[in-house]
């Protein structure tokens, strides 16, 4: 399945300008237009279905109170994405304090899911999807929250380096290096768990 890119304005610039001026219906219009996309992105970033709406509301809450800081409506989408990334990051940081990643459980799941992904029809699709989410969530425990989000945006959301540059306001080369390192770490964890599974 090809990754869905974050592009194409869902509201007119005029609506954004009205919302900036404090027009509540215009703000509603923005939320209605973007909430599905935001919810989807957050779902993939945090991998916790039950908290997705809460984090999405936080994103729109931040949007509401910082909309007046947006200089031009043209940069609205990267800016909204940045708010999403920040809210997801804050959530993940809080979560990490509470959570213990069960890396030992990873190998069996991830091998099974990788095979399943390549292997056509899968029984109990719902359960399998849940296991895939858990596997990726555990696997990403190998990197920091910031790297996890960056990796997700690139590998799962399918954003280009140019788009990431706009969101992070960081040099493309720096992003490349960071992405490479994050991917290597995840790959190492992935390989290590695969070996464990092979020997065990």
């Amino acid at each position, binding site marked *: *399945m090809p990754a869905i890119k974050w592009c194409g304005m869902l509201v007119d610039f005029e609506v954004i300008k009205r919302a900036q001026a404090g027009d509540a219906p215009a703000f509603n219009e923005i939320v209605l237009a973007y909430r599905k996309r935001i919810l*989807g992105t957050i779902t993939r970033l945090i991998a916790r279905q039950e908290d997705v709406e809460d984090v999405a509301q936080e994103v729109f809450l931040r949007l509401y*109170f910082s909309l007046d800081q947006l200089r031009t409506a043209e940069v609205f989408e990267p800016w909204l994405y940045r708010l999403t990334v920040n809210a997801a990051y804050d959530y993940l940081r809080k979560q990490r304090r509470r959570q213990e990643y069960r890396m030992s459980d990873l190998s069996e799941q991830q091998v099974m899911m*990788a095979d399943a992904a390549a292997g056509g029809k899968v029984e109990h699709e719902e359960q399998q999807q849940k296991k*895939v989410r858990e596997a*990726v969530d555990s696997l990403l425990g190998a990197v920091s929250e910031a790297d996890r989000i960056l990796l997700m945006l690139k590998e*799962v959301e399918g954003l280009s380096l140019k788009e990431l540059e706009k969101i992070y306001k960081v040099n493309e080369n720096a992003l490349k290096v960071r992405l490479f390192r994050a991917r290597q770490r995840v*790959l190492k964890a*992935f390989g290590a768990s*695969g070996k464990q599974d092979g020997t065990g």
Partner: protein
Amino acid sequence: MYPTHHSDEERLDALFRAYRAACPDRDAGANFMPELWKRIEARQTFTFSFRRMANAFVTAGLALTVVLGVYMAIPQRSPAYPVSYLQALADNNTLETPEIVGPVRLDLTDPGR
């Protein structure tokens, strides 16, 4: 070594694709908008109260500064105080120091002495 690594790369990509498929875009629940507006209003109320309190503090601070400024600017002259420090010192000495170190008094009115 390389083929294994290469295979891991592919499997990881496959896992990410599977993850993408397992997390499709979803729509919000019925309570999403009302809950969002509730949160916005709660934050607004808090911000408003905080701003009002901050404004009150700033106003009070400014008023106090002005009052102190005016107070300091007014020359501190009172009829109860002597005009100069030397006079004050002299007055003080006449009261508290013994006669021996007090000013010498010469009586020049009696020429017979």
